[in-house]
């Protein structure tokens, strides 16, 4: 199989925060009755089913709650095919959807003590430490496009967006992180 190519080929911008494209990462959209899927998720990925807006992580895998009937399973890229086969085998009697969306998403990371500030310039979501706690996944918009924000630790934020708008989101974040644009409202 061809090697995966990320949309921005690992682009990087250094402003008052660093914006870096990360990946490739395996991503599987898993939809269905989340209660019924919990056992299979544990068997295939070794992860607990996340509660509303939460992310569970263990041993390089992570599972993010996306909506009442959807989670995003994140795992190393080479393991996607195997995981899909295991899911299909385990869930053949359950109404569900398991789709490889690794190539449909782009991943960006914002690092720096003012990372929350870069987001605050672009989204209507409350990105204060109280409004977006560490470990939660918040689906919202960045300027004109949907995106999911996840504060991994203070000063480190991961952004998941659609691949087709990766350059747009990268440019937005870079513009918001330009030196001299610090507001210092949220200092980690």
């Amino acid at each position: 199989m061809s090697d995966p190519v990320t949309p921005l080929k690992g682009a990087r911008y250094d402003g008052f925060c660093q914006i870096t494209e990360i990946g490739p990462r395996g991503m599987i959209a898993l939809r269905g009755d989340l209660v019924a899927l919990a056992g299979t998720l544990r068997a295939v990925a070794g992860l607990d089913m996340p509660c509303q807006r939460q992310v569970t992580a263990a041993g390089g895998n992570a599972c993010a709650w996306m909506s009442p009937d959807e989670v995003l399973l994140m795992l190393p890229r080479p393991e996607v095919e195997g995981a899909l086969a295991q899911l299909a085998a385990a869930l053949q009697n359950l109404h569900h959807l398991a789709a490889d969306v690794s190539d449909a998403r782009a991943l960006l990371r914002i690092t720096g003590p003012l990372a929350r500030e870069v987001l605050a310039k672009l989204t209507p979501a409350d990105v204060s430490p109280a409004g977006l706690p560490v470990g939660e996944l918040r689906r919202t918009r960045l300027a004109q496009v949907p995106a999911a924000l996840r504060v991994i630790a203070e000063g480190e934020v991961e952004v998941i967006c659609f691949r087709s708008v990766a350059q747009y989101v990268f440019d937005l974040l870079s513009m918001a992180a330009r030196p001299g644009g610090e507001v210092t409202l949220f200092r980690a």
Partner: protein
Amino acid sequence: MLILTCPCCGIAADETELSPGGQAHITRAGPGADDAAFEGYLFLRTNPRGVHFERWRHSMGCGKWFHVARCTVTLEVFATYTAQTAAPPRQVVDEIIARRPDWQWESN
């Protein structure tokens, strides 16, 4: 700016994260309805000064539809509740009556 709490994901989303879906709880006319009734179902909407029921979709979030009861005069939001219902639930109606004693629920 409206801020509505999505009952599916619990997020207080502002209206720019949502897509409006128009008036809620419209009863479909037919089959066998006359043209006037079907025209009413398709095109005729209330435009109340006061309590209004609407459908909204959390399009920049969890993607789910939900219902909102709000006041068009004060922009007060009485409740947001599941889309899987043909009429506002009892507690939503009670909540509105507690704040607007003159109002009563009328299906259309």
